């Protein structure tokens, strides 16, 4: 890394090399990634409202700037200037901590996700990367539960409880649907998983069932429609964030959209070839991108961004299409369909891999 950018690297001359490699570069990359992600997350809220407007044959926000494009700047300003109301019976400490809890894992996960050809676009490449991502995303639920409990409001508490039950239930198929991919690629490193796909085919073909389960589970994990029961406005006012206003509400909102982005990145990396456009090693592979220099690396990033954008639109599309599930239907779908299906998928994948290997050997 320091060899590719000698000018910048010379600035760190006095710092020992391991510090530069393991602390300084990842920090710089993460700060840049953080700024970009905050921008994307804010922009997604505008895109969501415009796309939903289009789907529902209405305009959506179009007043601030040309075609309403500055709405995503106006919204945070509005939220920052709003009065911050704390309910009288709230559990003060928990009420203040709750909005911060989901946002930390949601942004920390971006350290582990490669956005383009490594090493330039991958902040880190940990050999248990995928497991760490699952672990971090699974802790995001605490803010929602705690926020619901600390608000001293029965609708909030119900929203928080629904969220806890839902996220625990759907974490199981979420994790199990990935196992098939892991068996095919034999690694927990995301870079390695993408590498295996460019040498063969995208995992979505051999793992169609796994991909479907992942898609459903990832929508349920971030509490998006049709699984948005924790904030079902027709039943629970606004669910767990009923009592939150101003920037505290914005933090919950940011965490939800950041988690959406994480899940969209994950499905692209796990099932849709990441930043590559290649079959059986032919086409735009990581290697060709790296030999093309900065142009190729940027191309890889753009391919990745385009794929992720598709899944972000898909989330919005779901919201515009499906009615909300009833709670007992949600649990039934999770426990009686998704989990058994994921287990069958694992067993079948294992048998096929064994047969192919023994047949080929």
């Amino acid at each position: 890394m320091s060899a590719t950018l000698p000018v910048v690297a010379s600035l760190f001359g006095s710092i020992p090399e391991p510090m530069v490699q393991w602390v300084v570069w990842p920090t710089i990359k993460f700060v840049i990634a953080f700024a970009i992600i905050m921008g994307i997350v804010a922009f997604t809220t505008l895109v969501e409202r415009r796309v939903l407007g289009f789907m529902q044959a209405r305009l959506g926000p179009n007043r601030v700037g040309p075609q309403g494009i500055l709405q995503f700047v106006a919204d945070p300003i509005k939220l920052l200037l709003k009065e911050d109301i704390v309910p009288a019976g709230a559990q003060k400490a928990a009420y203040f901590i709750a909005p911060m809890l989901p946002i930390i894992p949601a942004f920390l996960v971006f350290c582990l996700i490669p956005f383009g050809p490594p090493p330039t676009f991958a902040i880190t490449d940990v050999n248990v990367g995928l497991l760490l991502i699952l672990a971090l995303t699974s802790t995001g639920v605490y803010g929602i539960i705690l926020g619901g409990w600390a608000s001293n409001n029965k609708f909030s508490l119900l929203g928080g409880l629904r969220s806890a039950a839902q996220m625990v239930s759907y974490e199981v198929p979420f994790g199990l649907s990935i196992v098939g991919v892991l068996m095919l690629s034999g690694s927990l490193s995301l870079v390695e998983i993408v590498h295996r796909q460019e040498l063969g085919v995208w995992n979505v073909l051999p793992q169609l069932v796994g991909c479907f389960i992942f898609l459903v589970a990832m929508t349920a994990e971030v509490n998006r429609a049709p699984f948005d029961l924790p904030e079902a406005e027709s039943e629970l006012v606004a669910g767990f964030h009923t009592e939150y206003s101003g920037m505290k509400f914005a933090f919950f909102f940011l965490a939800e959209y950041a988690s959406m982005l994480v899940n969209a990145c994950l499905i692209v990396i796990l099932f849709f070839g990441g930043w590559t456009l290649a079959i059986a090693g032919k086409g735009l592979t990581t290697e060709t991108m790296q030999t093309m220099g900065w142009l190729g690396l940027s191309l890889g990033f753009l391919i990745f961004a385009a794929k992720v954008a598709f899944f972000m639109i898909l989330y919005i599309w779901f919201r515009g299409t499906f009615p909300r599930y009833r709670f007992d239907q949600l649990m039934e779908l999770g426990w009686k369909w998704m989990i058994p299906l994921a287990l069958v998928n694992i067993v079948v994948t294992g048998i096929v891999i064994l047969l192919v290997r023994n047949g080929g050997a």
Partner: protein
Amino acid sequence: MTDPLMLTGVSLALFVIVGAIAVASSILVVSMRNPVHSALFLLLTFLCVAILFVSMGAEFVGAVQVLVYAGGIMVLFLFVVMLINVKALPKEKVFTATSMMGVLMGVLLFIILAIILASGTWAPAVNAPENLRTAVVVKTTPVVDAGGATIQTETVTRDVVGNAEAVGMALYRDYLVPFEVASLFLLVAMVGAIVIGKRELDASEEEAIPEFIAKKVSDEDRLKEVTGA
């Protein structure tokens, strides 16, 4: 991988700080009077233990610790505590004869453990890094001579890559039977918990369940009923 920072001072400081937080928060787990606060401090303890695992090079165990304990078990704990809505417990006298007995026992146990550890006479851990498998047999092929008799077997091996694979090798190859027995125990415990926890509903409770949840009416019939079609 060797210690990437090559700074033993940093990892020592990390151990001291994180260890202190872990101990302090586990004391708070038992001393807090509000069950939700206790549960949150237990969560903090689990996270600190996970950091300690990672700092000792056991990334896999650390990640699993967060995934299982922080992501699953503690969420269910909180769920139950909030659902039954336990109020804060009344203040209690802390220094009773019973609790002082407990402190005494704790100090005694600490002294015994300290003596054992200081003497260094314990048997080496079974899963010490040097006992973990470092190579895997990929395949064995018999080498045959012209007559068809096997002269020797050729073995292809490769190195175990990373923490996850080493743990997997230990669990699913070297200690497969104990692992399966443990999983059977867990299953029995789970079935037992369900059997003990389940009770027959009496008639009035049976009535209280909405028909569509008790599945006396199918969704299609209910839809017809509601729409009047």
